[in-house]
């Protein structure tokens, strides 16, 4: 009889106990997976902003059309620039109005809130150093008020992401402890209920590893099933949230929400299996003495 068959034989009799354990593990993993989901989405926004490939050159109100034309030509000739588009103050106001659809709110803003600009499209692979140098050169020109490269936003998001990763790491430790505790308790309880089986196995000459194997498999199955259930629950929650997500918000931040990549989901399930196996292995070790 293979260890899987032995684990199935043992688990079949204690299925209620195992279902409870799987549910508890799932609750713990939902927390971790949620944190990872937030991290993944913030990272996607940061990536999008980091590789946005654009810069806004805000023009002074006193800039003449000739100055703007010369500047546009110079920009088009610059390395890494793929396109340049002139946006007048009125055009900028209209574009934002199309996004937020709040005319009264926009009308309250001063005229200076919508300066004319040159929207510069850049190659995605343009080095940050090159972009900063270009921005510094542009800022020296008399027609230019300021240059926005969106690097600051990217850096803020990176800081937010670092915080999120730290929080997810701490949460992961809590989840590890919870999963190990739940699976250990279940395996110990299961072992108590199957004490005679273990005792007999030892008496007929089973090695410790032979006795331990089905319990470790049960632990791994519990951990993996709990993690899988957590991913499934989170998937359902995500589907509900996603269907109500404001697409204009996605347009504004440059990226819509996305679910955990398949390899992250798979890693969570594998992690669940490993934690379950580890918990079972350590909890049974102390009880094998005969």
């Amino acid at each position, binding site marked *: *009889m293979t260890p899987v068959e032995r684990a199935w034989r043992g688990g079949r009799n204690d299925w209620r106990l195992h279902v409870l354990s799987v549910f508890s593990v799932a609750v713990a993993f939902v927390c971790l997976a949620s944190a990872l989901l937030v991290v993944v989405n913030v990272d996607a926004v940061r990536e999008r902003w980091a590789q946005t490939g654009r810069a806004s050159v805000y023009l002074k109100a006193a800039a003449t059309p000739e100055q703007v034309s010369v500047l546009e030509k110079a920009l088009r000739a610059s390395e890494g620039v793929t396109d340049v588009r002139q946006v007048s103050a009125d055009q900028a106001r209209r574009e934002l109005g199309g996004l937020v659809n709040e005319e009264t709110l926009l009308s309250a803003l001063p005229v200076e809130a919508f300066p004319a600009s040159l929207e510069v499209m850049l190659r995605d692979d343009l080095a940050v150093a090159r972009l900063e140098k270009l921005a510094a050169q542009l800022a020296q020109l008399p027609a230019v008020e300021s240059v926005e490269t969106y690097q600051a936003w990217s850096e803020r998001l990176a800081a937010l992401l670092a915080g999120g990763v730290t929080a997810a790491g701490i949460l992961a430790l809590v989840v590890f402890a919870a999963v190990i505790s739940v699976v250990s308790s279940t395996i110990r309880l299961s072992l108590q209920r199957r004490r005679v089986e273990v005792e007999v196995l030892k008496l007929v*000459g089973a090695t410790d590893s032979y006795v331990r194997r089905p319990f470790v498999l049960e632990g791994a199955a519990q951990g993996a099933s709990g993690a899988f259930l957590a991913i499934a629950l989170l998937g359902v929650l995500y589907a509900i949230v996603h269907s109500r997500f404001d697409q204009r918000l996605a347009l504004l931040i440059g990226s819509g929400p996305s679910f955990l990549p398949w390899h992250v989901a798979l890693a969570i399930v594998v992690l669940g299996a490993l934690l379950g196996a580890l918990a079972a292995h350590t909890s049974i070790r102390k009880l094998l003495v005969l």
Partner: protein
Amino acid sequence: MEPGAKVRAFRPALRAGANRFDPVAAHRPVLVFDDVHKAYRADAPVLKGLSLEIQRGEFVFITGPSGSGKSTLLRLLYAAEPVDSGRILFMGREVGRLSRASVPFLRRNIGIVFQDFKLVPNWSVLENVALPLEVLGVNSRLTRQRVGDALERVGLDGRGSEVVGALSGGEQQRVAIARAIVGEPALLLADEPTGNLDPQLAVDILGLFEDIHASGVTVLFATHDRSLLDVRPRRVLVLDEGRASDILKGLDEAAPDRHVA
């Protein structure tokens, strides 16, 4: 072997029922107790310098009042307890010096029957009896065949599919005996196997052990039931207050052979 060296794996020289025959091993006692001491409390030793030899194919009763050390003696044999001092040699190997990893290999050569049967109640008879063969990795076809043979020997032929918990006490003890002999052990230990059974069933179970003994298996039968000792004259080891009296030809013919170990 170097003094203090650990025995890495237990490999018996001779197994009952096996075809191999080692003429040297055949002339050695299967079991030797050499000045064995065991105490759970310092002021109440269970065994005080027990020394005896048991030859291959012997049937030995171990008797004595409750707490005299019958079960302890058996537990020392299958390495469930360590000896405090002295040596126990099983098939020439010192049990006390076996490494933890070697103990399972020792136990594969010993069949054990308990008073409380130690069966898994929600398993079938077949699953319970097949356990020693599963541990040995015997394939399922051969397992079924050998389990069938063992059940036939204990009078439970064709009842492999029944759930053990639904059987009577006597039947459960037969299942336990079938499990103990299915691996063809060299030594069969019985720790009060009739303690939970009525007198007639006890005699039947003793008869089963005698049948198994007749096939060449060495049997150590621990009991406090004096009536069983009178069924047939056998060697009797009487334990009392840590001392052992070895009566070689049964209680009725005790006087000439009696000595204290």
